[in-house]
């Protein structure tokens, strides 16, 4: 049983604020691991530490046994970690196909001279890249939309295009930051199946931040709960659903209006 990602007492501060506090996580290879917690708990900040957007202020992050804390985002991507963003960040004025082609950047080799001269090797590489991009678009059910500017795609399509772009880097570990945000229950259900397929068919380990509890409980093997930057619980879905500290974090605080009779199960869609 190998751990693909290990976080050791990771700390991230913003001024006086401890956004992530001594976080310990171990993520099993080829598992689906979810991170949940109220807004502002530090989930996205942790993702940003893993992907090199932030350098942790303390602790270490090991990817396949190798320390990646403080490496630059492009280096980390080359090692095999890809991500999507809570608020979609596509290359808006590029087509869907181009977005996926950019995703393949690290696996292509054409340089300045080859591109200008259109060498045979370069043309072959480019044709293969386009074919691969179309295959990925098909995989995320965007067949035929390759020529649309990504900003002109509907919201759900944009979410899936972002995943296709991440897949194009051929990741071993994929970080999804609220992939069902803004989706209705039916779309969220589709997304759930799709995420499971990523793991089952492509053998990619999934690290998921998610608010839709049906999705989280339905596909995660393990779940970690963050609150105020700290991990307050970890376990399988059943353990998390019945953990009093988790229920307290979601329901107990401020939300006096919340109906406490539902205590014992986390509401289907928690805090937003």
């Amino acid at each position, binding site marked *: 049983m190998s751990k693909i990602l290990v976080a050791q007492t990771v700390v991230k501060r913003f001024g006086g604020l401890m956004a992530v506090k001594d976080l310990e996580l171990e993520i099993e290879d080829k598992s689906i691991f979810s991170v949940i917690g109220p807004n502002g708990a530090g989930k996205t900040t942790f993702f940003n530490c893993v992907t090199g957007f932030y350098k942790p202020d303390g602790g270490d992050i090991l990817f396949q046994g190798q320390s990646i804390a403080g490496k630059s985002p492009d280096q980390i991507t080359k090692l095999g970690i890809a991500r999507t963003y809570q608020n979609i960040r596509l290359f808006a004025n590029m087509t869907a196909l181009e977005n996926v082609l950019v995703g393949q950047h690290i696996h292509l080799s054409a340089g300045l001279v080859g591109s*200008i001269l259109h060498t045979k090797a370069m043309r072959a590489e480019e044709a293969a890249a386009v074919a691969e991009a179309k295959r990925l678009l098909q995989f995320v059910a965007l067949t035929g939309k390759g*020529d649309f500017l990504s900003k002109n795609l509907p919201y759900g399509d944009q979410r899936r295009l972002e995943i296709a772009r991440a897949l194009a880097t051929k990741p071993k570990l994929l970080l999804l930051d609220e992939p069902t945000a803004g989706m209705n229950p039916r779309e969220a259900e589709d997304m759930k199946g799709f995420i499971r397929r990523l793991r089952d068919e492509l053998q990619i380990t999934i690290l998921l931040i998610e608010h839709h509890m049906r999705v989280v409980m339905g596909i995660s093997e393990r779940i970690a709960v963050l609150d105020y930057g700290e991990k307050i619980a970890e376990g399988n879905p059943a353990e998390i659903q019945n953990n009093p500290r988790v229920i307290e974090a979601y329901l107990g605080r401020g939300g006096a209006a919340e109906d406490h009779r539902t205590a014992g199960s986390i509401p289907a869609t928690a805090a937003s």
Partner: protein
Amino acid sequence: MKTQPATVFQTSMRFGLIGGGAAVLFSLVGMVEVFGQRTIIGGVVSMGQAFVAIAMLLSAYAAARQLSSVSSSAMLTAGGLTGVTVGALLAALVLLGTSINIRDVFVSASPPLFELLSFGQSPVPGMLLLLVAGMTMGLAAAALLFLSPAMRSTAISVLLAVGVVGLLADLLRIIISQWAYVAPLVEWVFSGKGLSVPGALAIAAVVIGLDVLANRRRNKAHNLAALPATALQKRMRTGALMALLLVLPLLLGTYVSEVLDQVGLYVLMGLGLNVVVGFAGLLDLGYVGFFAIGAYVMGMLTSPELGLASLSWWSALPIAVGVTVLAGMLLGVPVLNMRGDYLAIVTLGFGEIIRLLALSDALRPWTGGSQGIQLIAKPVVGTVVLDDQLKLYYLILAGCLLAGFISSRLRDSRLGRAWMAMREDEDVAQAIGINLVATKLLAFSVGAAFGGLSGAIFAAKLGAIYPNSFGLLISINVLALLIIGGMGSIRGVIVGALVLVGLPELLREFAEFRLLVYGALLVMMMLYRPQGLWPEEARKLEAHGDGDNSNGDQTAAIPA
């Protein structure tokens, strides 16, 4: 909806005051008077009058269009009223200018201006004429809206064609006189200055004829479900364009060749800056620095005057371009972590530093200081010395074609996509695996190379260079032509250079008001056409025409 007189009145006033204000402004800064010396149709319309007429037409057209959902009478009323308002503001200017002396403040408020504005009459009848003209123009503009779109576009084309031909009359006359067969036409089409009345009518007839033909063809093509151009058609079109570019200066003569040379040098710079700003999104305000380095290295290496070296132009060229590329990287390194405004300011400084270095006394033995460098070598091809506008045109054309070719190849490559990704979102681009350092430095290098090439040709063309030829205005010109043509658009660079460099050369009067026109043009572009005059199409169907769009199964749901 019932016509509301108040709305009609308000709309007319608003547009009338805007149009009238613009007309008064242009009169007071002297544009109307300067243009008054250019005739469009001999004895009928001068450019100055056309200017006033355009203000009336445009504002009335805008006002009438705003009311197009109300009623046709409202549109006509608004058109007329708007035109009259513009006329009234100009009449007020005439009254003011002829009764008291405002020349102390407005230097251009001279008697000739008022004479022009009052149609050569004394002030009172002149003012009445202005009101009548305003009313007529306003009604005419509103009437345009009642035409079918096809007829309207024909009418506008006719006005534009007559205007442009009239404006360029002096030039066209010289050009046409060189063509033996049509030379006799010259006397008939042109009169003294500008077009003759029959000439104007003939042009109108030709434009209408062409328009009808084009419409008929378009309809036919429409019925055939307009097929995209085949590879052969594309190649033929390219061939025709090339042939045209090759013979153009031969047909048009020396003066136009000179203008084309300048346009070409700016196209070259524009293509370079387009890589940096348009593709990679790195706002560089010191682009003239690369132009200067290319020119100066060429000067240093080829001018016997300085006694540094006297290489031939061709052997100095790779060194000049190479040094410029190096400078591009040197500029690139310190600004790697800068974005937006900071990058702009630092590059702005870079451009000035290069100019000041060229000017400095300390470097005089190498750069010639304020005296510049003379006796710069001309390029020699075989036994031909490229020493006049015409021969240099072909060198510049070759340079532009090369730069355009490289730009388009790079745009559609892995590197071009990395640049565009960086432009769209630098952080995400890095997170997708793009090495920002290498990618930015490559953009600066390619941009610098084109600028250096342009500078090297510029140095040879003039034979002498001075620090003051490399001012900030060049950077601004190049950036402005990108904005006008369309950021990131290769063909837009050409359009931008023609509009910003070509037109002012042909209409010398513009030169004086260049910055004013730039400003107005840029503001209008930002408001009404931020994508530029000729943007790259979303590259739909073009770049990836191999069917991703044809057999799409759009209903595929996410497999669950």
